[in-house]
């Protein structure tokens, strides 16, 4: 038996940097350092653990859609232990929204061949958290999403989804799309050996024509949503800061009472 896992990852602007918008109201990716979205590291980690716990022959492919720099995200995932990588890159992709991104990813996943797709719970830049559900809808396979625990055995994926009202145990047959949360287990750091090995691992580059996608289906032109404006939130006006000299709690209560919270 073999198990083909495709892990979708995203190269995002560093959240601790000064993120902003470009003139066309897309996310500015030039002026801020990028990196593998932290939440996708959990997806890579779970793929590696499934592989380590499996008697099957498991192959892990990491897949990203993005500009040239996005290769850095793939390298990081390869150095953690993934086997190979696919980079979908095309000038016409700039400005693609979630619906369009899911189209590119789904076509690439089908072309790569898969039994299991693993994604992070959301990207750290767009933070919509909808791509795994969109992939399941497009691929016509079960979605087993937002898992804080996941296992694969005998062609079945099982996991625990912790919701607001209840914790649910889920089960589906492969092929399936899984997404994992940051509660699924700390991601490993790449070892020196892993970093060296990653340099030799294959990274394929595909463009839209490789995936039979027309330019007008994606990009800003093909987007299903339009951003009309993006304004920096005005800095909050400086508040009152007091040093506690024994009455700090009472002073705070006085403030809250003045604001009618008490």
């Amino acid at each position, binding site marked *: 038996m073999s198990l083909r896992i495709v892990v979708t990852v995203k190269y995002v602007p560093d*959240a601790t940097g000064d*993120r902003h918008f470009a003139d066309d*109201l897309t996310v500015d990716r030039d002026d801020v350092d990028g990196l593998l979205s932290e939440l996708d590291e959990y997806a890579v980690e779970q793929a590696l653990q499934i592989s380590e716990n499996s008697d099957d022959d498991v192959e892990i492919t990491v897949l990203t859609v993005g500009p040239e720099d996005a290769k850095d995200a793939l390298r990081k995932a390869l150095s953690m232990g993934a086997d190979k990588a696919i980079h979908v890159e095309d000038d016409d992709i700039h400005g693609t*929204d*979630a*619906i369009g991104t899911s189209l590119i990813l789904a076509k690439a996943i089908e072309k790569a061949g898969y039994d299991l797709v693993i994604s992070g*719970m959301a990207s750290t*830049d767009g*933070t*919509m958290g909808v791509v795994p*559900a*969109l992939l399941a*809808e497009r691929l*016509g*396979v*079960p*979605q*087993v*999403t937002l898992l804080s625990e996941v296992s694969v055995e005998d062609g079945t994926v*099982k996991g625990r*989804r912790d919701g607001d*009202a*209840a*914790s*649910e*145990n*889920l*089960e*589906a047959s492969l092929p*399936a799309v899984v997404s994992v949360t*940051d509660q699924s287990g700390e991601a490993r750091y790449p070892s020196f050996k892993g970093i060296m090995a990653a340099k030799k691992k294959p990274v394929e580059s595909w463009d839209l024509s490789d995936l039979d996608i027309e330019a007008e289906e994606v990009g800003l032109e093909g*987007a*299903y*949503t*339009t*951003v*009309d404006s*993006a*304004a*920096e*939130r005005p800095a*909050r006006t400086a*508040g*009152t*800061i*007091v*040093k*506690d000299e*024994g*009455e*700090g*709690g*009472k*002073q*705070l209560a006085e*403030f*809250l009472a003045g*604001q009618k*919270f*008490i």
Partner: protein
Amino acid sequence: MAEVLVYVDHVDGAVRKPTLELLTLARRIGEPVAVALGNGAADTAATLAEHGAVKVLTHEAAEYADYLVVPKVDALQAAHEAVSPAAVLVPSSAEGKEIAARLALRLGSGIITDAVDLEAGDEGPVATQSVFAASFTTKSRVSKGTPVITVKPNSAAVEAAPAAGAVEALNVSFSAQATGTKVTGRTPRESTGRPELTEAAIVVSGGRGVNGAENFAIIEALADSLGAAVGASRAAVDAGWYPHTNQVGQTGKSVSPQLYIASGISGAIQHRAGMQTSKTIVAINKDAEAPIFDLVDYGVVGDLFDVVPQLTEEIKARKG
């Protein structure tokens, strides 16, 4: 007047507050038609009518509880076909966003998630979103198909607006995918008796400075004196001091209450992402240089173990 579909989040017929907020927003765009599914669906009608639903489409079937997400997408698609609405509004819960995304794809529509405000516009509803850890505000609209928009809790006031609320049975035939992901077990969360974190008017959160699970009792005592929900920073959750369901921040809940009280929280970007849109922000921290103080309306530099209990006592005294 155009109709607007509103997906109803309810527990056995008890409508959750974010759905009532959606009805307020839906009335700005058109006539709200609510869609209530699963056990107790028909019991939602009275509450929904009080808040402006002209119609309540209901469908009860075991599939809604037994399988993940897809049966609800099938039902909303059926409702869309029956009504041809001007927009579809869904509460921005984890499940709500997944339902909305799959529906949008089926309808050939665009999707906007996590709106914090919604207005009628010449080219369809205009959604306000708060992005990049709430450092930017964007205005967007769906440019193809029926707009599908998810809205965050506390984005609008709940308003009484009595309407007919006529109950109609919705015809739903489930798709082949509906039974793909089986829910094999469900463990309901134990109720704390406190308000739901994302819906609460006041949130009291503890962070690294709380320094131990047992010390969260003083955060809870403050919360209870104000009728507030309890939140925790990622540091406190990762340390195992408080459950992940109470985590506020990028990988936890995003809250937007009237009052947010941060105790022993430094205010890292990941935390700010989840609370920066709160109306009034108050912090208590030993470190005068902590970034949280850049956000506050009122801050106390001091030991939370002195300040928080004194605050709690003072609130109780004032409330008598």
